[in-house]
């Protein structure tokens, strides 16, 4: 019973965090802040939701598989975001502050 209550809280929190991440994907001004919004909330939502689901199992093979998914997602998802941001940086994408800076330079 207590496990189910904890699991419910974790699931709802996870859902809330992933929703904020998705909103951030639209509301943040430049690409790097958007990556930040997406990847940070991705990690926390994954941890919360999968832990919430593990509490609902009988701690058998299903729980082990969920743990495997958690480890796998925690390894790959931030790596992918990091590599993407790095590649965007190499591709010449600027942050908002830098764009403002360069515009100021143009006006002078």
């Amino acid at each position, binding site marked *: 019973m207590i496990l189910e209550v904890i699991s419910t809280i974790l699931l709802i929190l996870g859902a809330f965090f992933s929703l904020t991440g998705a909103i951030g994907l639209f509301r943040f001004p430049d690409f790097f802040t958007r990556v930040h919004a997406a990847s940070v909330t991705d990690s926390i939502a994954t941890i919360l939701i999968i832990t919430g689901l593990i509490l609902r199992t009988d701690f058998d093979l299903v729980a082990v598989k969920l743990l495997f998914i958690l480890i*796998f997602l925690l390894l*790959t998802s931030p*790596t992918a975001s*990091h*590599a993407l941001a*790095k590649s965007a940086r*190499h591709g010449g994408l600027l942050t908002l502050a830098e764009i403002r800076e360069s515009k100021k330079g143009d006006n002078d």
Partner: protein
Amino acid sequence: MVELIDLVLLGMLAITALRVIFLKDLFAVVMLFGLYSFLSALIFVNLDAVDVAFTEAAVGAGISTVLMLGTLALTGRKEKANNHTALLPLLVVIITGAALIYGTLDMPPFGHPDNPAHQHVAPRYIEESPKEIGLPNMVTSVLASYRAFDTLGETAVVFAAAIGVLSLLGMPKPGGVAIDSGLKSHLVLRVVAKLVIPMTILFALYVQFHGDYGPGGGFQAGVIAAAAVILYALVFGLPLATHVVRPNFLKVLAALGVLIYAGTGVTSFFLGGNFLDYNVLASDPVVGQHIGIIVIEFGIGITVFAAMLGIFYGFAAQAERTNIQ
């Protein structure tokens, strides 16, 4: 609930397909196609086709996207403006679509248990296969035993396709020098890839041998194992990957898998049964079926692994060659 999720996902798919029509940037088209495969695999999960979803996620979304990106790297990523009138194709499509929708009205309602599709052979598969074959996964039973001859044909098609691609593109030459890859500077990526690749191969083995009890089997396992080597080739460069899994070795493997499959059939032949009749492989028919299915799934896994990896090598070799020039 199932219908609601189904409707939402189908709606997403329709929007994605529409967007693909109007995009001129082929890179974006390929990305959206990957998304399309992902969403359709989700629909398959929702409609209870877990094995199909497994295959679509691994093959459709994974290998297809990688191959299409490889092609784009060789052919350029912008579609040129096209001065055809779009009117005639649109007319053809609308007429065909209207005819098909008119045709669906004669079809039985979606998901109804009394539909003709569920009346003839399906009840037998559902009721008898756990007793006759002794496996919980009916899809594996039907795939590898009842319709084994069909699957042999499909394995041969995959093998033939690999031969076709290799004769068109050629294999990478072993012992090439690694060109400096931009991913060299991605240190985090390299470390994580080293962790992920062994896990992937382990997972492929699990899928291969657990396919009798859960979703999975030779086709999926072969693709996942190939995906592990593809990941290695993408991060550490093609020459290192060809050093680990040699192209010539792959050619042997691809043929070997088909031979194992057909050889099982011939063995059952000599033991007094029909072609691919596993009942005669052991004194107890159910044990015989089990042996037969494990052996031929192994053959499928080997062929699919070798064929998919060989196809990737073909494309990657072309890309490396043009990059050097």
